[in-house]
C-alpha cells in the first residue's frame, strides 16, 4: 500500500482520472504521490499520455481510444479506476529516489526585489533577517504548474508567510523569487503574477533548448543562497 492516509480516485474529465490523498499540504503525502508518479512513469499504463503530480494528488491524462482496447466491455474510467486501485495496493516498484539537493542563488537587492522592504516592515523584521529566514531552510518542490517550470516550494517559515497581492502585477520579470502564502517559487518566464517578490535568480529555470527543459523536478529539495547585485549581473560570465 502506497498511501498512509485515506485516498479517493475520481474522474476529472472523460480523458482524465485523479487520485487524491488527504486534504492538506504535507511532505509525507507528497512523497507518496511522487513515489506513485515514479512507479507509474517507469511502468506505464498503455494509453496514458501524461502523469501530473500535485501537492496531494496525481492526475493521469489518457487517450480514450487506446485505453478502450484494454478496457474491453467496461468503460475506460471503470477500467482505470480498478487498475489504479491495484497499482496503489501493489506497487510494481516503490522507487525510493533520493531527492536531488539543489542550491539556487538569489539576489535580494531592493532594486530587483520590489516587495522585500514591505514584507520586512509587515513582519517587523529587518531585510537582513528576512533574507536569513528565506535562505535558512530547505524547501521541497511539491509540484510544477501555473507556467512551464514554475515550482511550488514550501513551506516557508511562519515568520514570513505572506498572502498574495490582492491585485496581481500585470508583469513579473523572469527569475523573480516570490512568496505566496506558505509557498515560495520562481517565475521562469515574464508573466502576470500575484506573489510577493523578494529577489531574483540569474538561473534560467526553463530552457526549451535543453532535453530536460526544466531546472527543477517534483520532489527536489531546494536551498537558496544570497548573492550581491554585481554577482547577479555577472552570473555565468566568469
Amino acid at each position, binding site marked *: 500500500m502506497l498511501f498512509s492516509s485515506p485516498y479517493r480516485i475520481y474522474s476529472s474529465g472523460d480523458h482524465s482520472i485523479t487520485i*487524491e490523498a488527504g486534504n492538506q499540504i504535507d511532505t509525507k503525502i507528497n512523497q507518496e504521490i511522487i513515489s506513485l508518479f515514479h512507479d507509474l512513469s517507469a511502468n506505464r499504463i498503455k494509453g496514458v499520455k501524461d502523469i501530473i503530480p500535485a501537492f496531494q494528488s496525481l492526475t493521469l491524462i489518457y487517450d480514450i481510444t487506446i485505453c478502450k482496447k484494454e478496457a474491453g466491455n467496461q468503460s475506460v474510467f471503470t477500467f482505470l479506476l480498478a487498475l489504479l486501485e491495484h497499482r496503489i495496493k501493489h506497487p510494481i516498484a516503490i522507487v525510493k529516489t533520493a531527492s536531488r539537493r539543489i542550491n539556487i542563488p538569489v539576489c535580494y537587492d531592493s532594486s530587483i526585489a520590489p516587495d522585500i522592504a514591505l514584507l520586512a516592515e509587515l513582519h517587523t523584521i529587518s531585510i537582513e533577517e528576512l533574507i536569513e529566514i528565506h535562505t535558512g531552510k530547505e524547501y521541497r518542490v511539491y509540484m510544477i504548474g501555473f*507556467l512551464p517550470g514554475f515550482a511550488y516550494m514550501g513551506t516557508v517559515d511562519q515568520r514570513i508567510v505572506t498572502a498574495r497581492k490582492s491585485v496581481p502585477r500585470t508583469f513579473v520579470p523572469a527569475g523573480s523569487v516570490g512568496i505566496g502564502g506558505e509557498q515560495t517559487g520562481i517565475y521562469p518566464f515574464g508573466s502576470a503574477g500575484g506573489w510577493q517578490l523578494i529577489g531574483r535568480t540569474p538561473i534560467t529555470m526553463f530552457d526549451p533548448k535543453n532535453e530536460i527543459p526544466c531546472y527543477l523536478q517534483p520532489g527536489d529539495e531546494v536551498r537558496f543562497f544570497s548573492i550581491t547585485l554585481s554577482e547577479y549581473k555577472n552570473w555565468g560570465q566568469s
Partner: protein
Amino acid sequence: MSIRINKSGLLDTLQDEGRYGYQHLGVNPGGAMDRIAMHIANALVGNPPNETVLEMHFPAAEILFEQTLLIALAGADFSSTINGKELPILHPVLISKGSILAFGKRKYGARVYLSVQGGFTADTWLNSTSTNTKVNAGGFHGRALQKNDQLLLNNPGAFSFVFTDHAFEVLPWKAKTAELYTTNSIRFIAGAEFGNLHNQSIVVMKTQVYTISRDSDRMGYRLQAGPLTTLSHQEMISTAVTRGTIQLLPNGQLIILMADHQTTGGYPRMGHVITADLPTLAQMQAGETFQLQEINPEQSEDLFFEQEMNLQQLQNACNFRLQEYLKA
C-alpha cells in the same frame, strides 16, 4: 516549396494534436482547438489526421501560394476567396502557383484550419509541432505568423494539372460535418466539487444560458450568466486540470479551460466538458450562447467513440475519392 504570408491575421499558428508527456513540468499541451476540423482538413488532402495545420482566427491571414498545391479549409467559414473568386470550404482544392488566398466576412465559426498535402515544415519541440507562444517553441519559430513569413512545405505532390480559366480547381466532393458537431447544448460530466454547489445553483447551472465573454481565448472561455454559489467556502489545494475543465471563479462565474490551459489550478471544479463537444465549443466565439447538459462518464466515452468512428469513415471516403481522382 512554400507559402508566404502577405498579410497577418489576428492569431495564425501552426498546431497539431498537442504536446503530451510534459505536463508534470508545467508544459501545457496546446494543439488545435477544434480537433475535428484539423482531422477533416487533413483527410481532404490525404494527410494523416494529426498532420500539422495552420489554425487561423478572425480576421485570418492573406496567403500567397508559391507553388501549385492541394489544400483544404475546414472549421469556420470566413468567406474564403482565391484571387477574389469564392472558394468553398470542406473541399480539396488544387491551387495554382501565384494564387492568393484571402478571407472576407465571418459567416460562422471562430477558427479556420488550412491543410496542405504533405504538411507544413514545422519546428518540433518535445514531440509536437504545436506553437507554444509562452515558451516560444514549436510551430513556426514558436510564434504566431507575421507578414512576409515564408512557410516551407514537407513533401507536396507534384501536380501537372492544367488549370482552365480559374486559378484553382475545387475537387467535386465535400466533407459532411453535420453529425460531428452538436447543435443544442454543451455536455459535461460532474467535477469533484460539483456536489459543493447549493441545490438551487445545481439547477441554475444546468438550466441557465451562458454567454461567452470577450476575454476568452485559446487558454479559456469565460462565461457570463447568473452567479453560482457553494455550500461552504472550501480552501482548495491545487490539482492538475485539463482541457474542458469547468472551474468556478470566486465571483460565481464559470470558466472552461481550453487548449492552452495551465496545467494546474486551484479553483473548484464544477465539471468537465466532454471531449466530443470541445470542437463545437472551440467554434463558438464571444457573444455566442449555449446551455450546459450533464451526462455520465460512460455516455461521454460512447459519444467520443461514435465521433471517432464517423471521422474514420470520413477519412476512408476522402482517401478513396482522392486516389480515384489522381488515377484518372
